[in-house]
């Protein structure tokens, strides 16, 4: 098994397949989100993508309550995992996440209204590609294709390589979104099948990177440098999720530019202003969001930092490609 996720048998764990994406590489694209991440960014907007295996989610709005259903209050569900509190205003079920996390797909299927679901499912490469290929005409007309994202798509290197090679075999352009906190062998296995690599420069200083993501960035930067040099035909696009109080400052932007500009195949550097769109997902997973005090960056700040990038890339006019 290469990577922490078992992809033997030609299957991988897919979180979601999202069509008509416009910010995940050139043209109109279908983004395939693979499950599992090797970082724990405190601002993460996709917490459902983090775990290495399918995991339970609970949408209270779909629960019809104990009187009408109550299926999860009985075996085979673990005792105490689901309950209706004494004196509750409604009879909707609550989740004790510590006791409920062992629920598997078979148990979840026993929830008639579908309030319980699993984030992530096993799929074969062909199953994914058949879905992706449905929009082939859009890819041709827009210059788009398929993007692998995550989580960290390089944590399933065999599956990712199979998907990307399969896409190429079907005439579909390929891109990946990665933070590259993986062994070089994973990168080396996947990149021969990639046209565009969108890659994150979250923080520049290793200690700060560790504070906000859980690990330092030494290996990530080494992987990037080696990738730039080993795969000259790949278009690399650097990206920074811009978070005031974390990395939305000139020092970081200039440090990233100093790192990427010597490499001519790094064709752009995009800013991704921080947003809080993913907060509701924390509730579905029974987790606490830790970055509540952080605001989205102001338009003025984004414009000022974008101007630094434009200047470094020799662009004179305003660049419209700040990804909102």
């Amino acid at each position, binding site marked *: 098994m290469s990577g922490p996720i078992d992809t033997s048998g030609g299957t991988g764990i897919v979180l979601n397949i999202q069509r008509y994406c416009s910010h995940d590489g050139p043209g109109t694209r279908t983004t395939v989100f693979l499950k599992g991440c090797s970082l724990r960014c405190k601002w993460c907007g996709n917490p459902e993508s983090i775990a290495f295996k399918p995991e339970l989610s609970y949408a209270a709005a779909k629960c019809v309550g104990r009187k009408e259903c109550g299926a999860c209050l009985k075996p085979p569900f673990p005792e105490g995992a689901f309950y209706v509190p004494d004196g509750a205003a409604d009879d909707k079920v609550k989740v004790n996440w510590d006791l409920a*996390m062992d629920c598997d797909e078979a148990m979840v299927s026993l929830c008639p209204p579908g309030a319980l679901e699993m984030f992530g499912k096993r799929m074969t490469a062909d199953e994914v590609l058949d879905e992706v290929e449905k929009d082939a005409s859009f890819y041709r007309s827009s210059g788009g294709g398929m993007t692998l994202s995550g989580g960290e798509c390089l944590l399933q290197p065999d599956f990712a390589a199979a998907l990307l090679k399969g896409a190429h075999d079907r005439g579909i352009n390929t891109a990946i979104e990665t933070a590259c906190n993986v062994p070089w062998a994973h990168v080396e296995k996947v990149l021969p099948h990639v046209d565009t690599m969108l890659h994150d420069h979250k923080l520049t200083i290793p200690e700060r990177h560790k504070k906000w993501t*859980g690990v330092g960035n030494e290996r990530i930067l080494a992987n990037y440098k080696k990738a730039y040099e080993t795969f000259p035909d790949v278009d690399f696009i650097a990206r920074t999720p811009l978070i005031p109080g974390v990395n939305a400052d000139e020092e970081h932007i200039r440090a990233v530019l100093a790192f990427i500009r010597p490499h001519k195949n790094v064709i752009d550097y995009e800013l991704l202003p921080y947003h809080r769109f993913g907060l509701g997902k924390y509730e579905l997973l029974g987790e606490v969001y830790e970055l509540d005090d952080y605001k989205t960056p102001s338009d003025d700040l984004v414009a000022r930092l974008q101007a630094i990038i434009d200047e470094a890339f020799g662009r004179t006019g305003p660049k419209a490609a700040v990804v909102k």
Partner: protein
Amino acid sequence: MKEIGHASSQRRIAVMVGAGHVPGLNAVVMGTALAAGKLGWETVGIRDGLDGLLYPERYPHGGLVTLTPELIANLDPNAAGILGQAPRVDPFHVRRVNAAEMVEEVDLSDQLLEKLKAEKIDALVGVVGGRGMSILYKLHRKGLNVVCVPRSIENDIAATSVSFGFNSALSFTIEMLDRVREAAQSARKIGVVEVLGEQAGWLALQAGIAVCADVVLIPEISGDLAAVATRLKDKVTAQRPWGLVVVAEGATLLDQAKGESKPNPLKASLSPLATGEASDHVIRRSGQAAATVVGRLQLLVAEELFPLVLGPWARGGAPTAVDRQLGMAYGAGAVRAVKAGNYGTMVAFVPPDLKFVPLPEAINKVRTVPVDGGFVQIATSLGIFLGRELS
């Protein structure tokens, strides 16, 4: 159920402390070790939650502390730190950076049980809060002999009258409220003090009664700030130009202004008390309740208000006499439960007795302030306004 244990009469038990600090934890450790010692058993303490067992290599003198009579005799009951604590105590989801430098969560529960077995520990006493109880219950279902001691600053653990740590936090809160009252008197302002109490308002209510606050806002009674302002106008006069408002951090308000942060139960959607519509996401932010109440009351009353947040200050310091007794009693009670084989239980103080309550009766519940109960009646009869008129 498969039990991990040993038939020897010379038993060896362990005591651990869950995440979340309260004053005087040494008292429970002492009570456990002394009572076990009387039975001829050996007691070991696990350092930093369960880390001492899972990562003994981190500790130069070992991850377990043998709680010998000599050590116990010299242990400071006013201190809290002999075993230390860990910010997360969940062997089912241990976050770590693996050999491949990837962050991952792994299940070390089997490893933990093996290590307990290897150390010949046949029962575990856990001094834990509500979440810790769920985790120890899960370990119990895997075969571990577990007895829990309830520990809660907010006194929100069900099935016991008083959790360990509450009384110390209450005393500290009262002392701080007295000081704030003096400051408010001096400055001729209205002090708004946020105290701990995400889901239950015991600390705010009992401390508010002790200092005879003007207003106490708790999670159990949704407060109407317009009514609060009216009450403050009556009480804050030229002859008494100051006021004191106590706000539990999970206090709820009626008629939330649209778009304004509400002092809502933090982590609302994870609370057994929340309805499906309780919140759209889960957060933890100290100080929000006081800031919101001050911000909105400022528009409704003439006097100046100032916010103060006691929050984590109440978690430190020396235990009160009540908590010292309670800690010793809970420790001794836990040993009684172990001796009787009452595993998978929590020691509960149901005056005048200690009882052993099955863990499922304690988890998934919150001990809230009854709106028609004695403390609410006492507060009302003292003229303390609880956010709205109660019938």
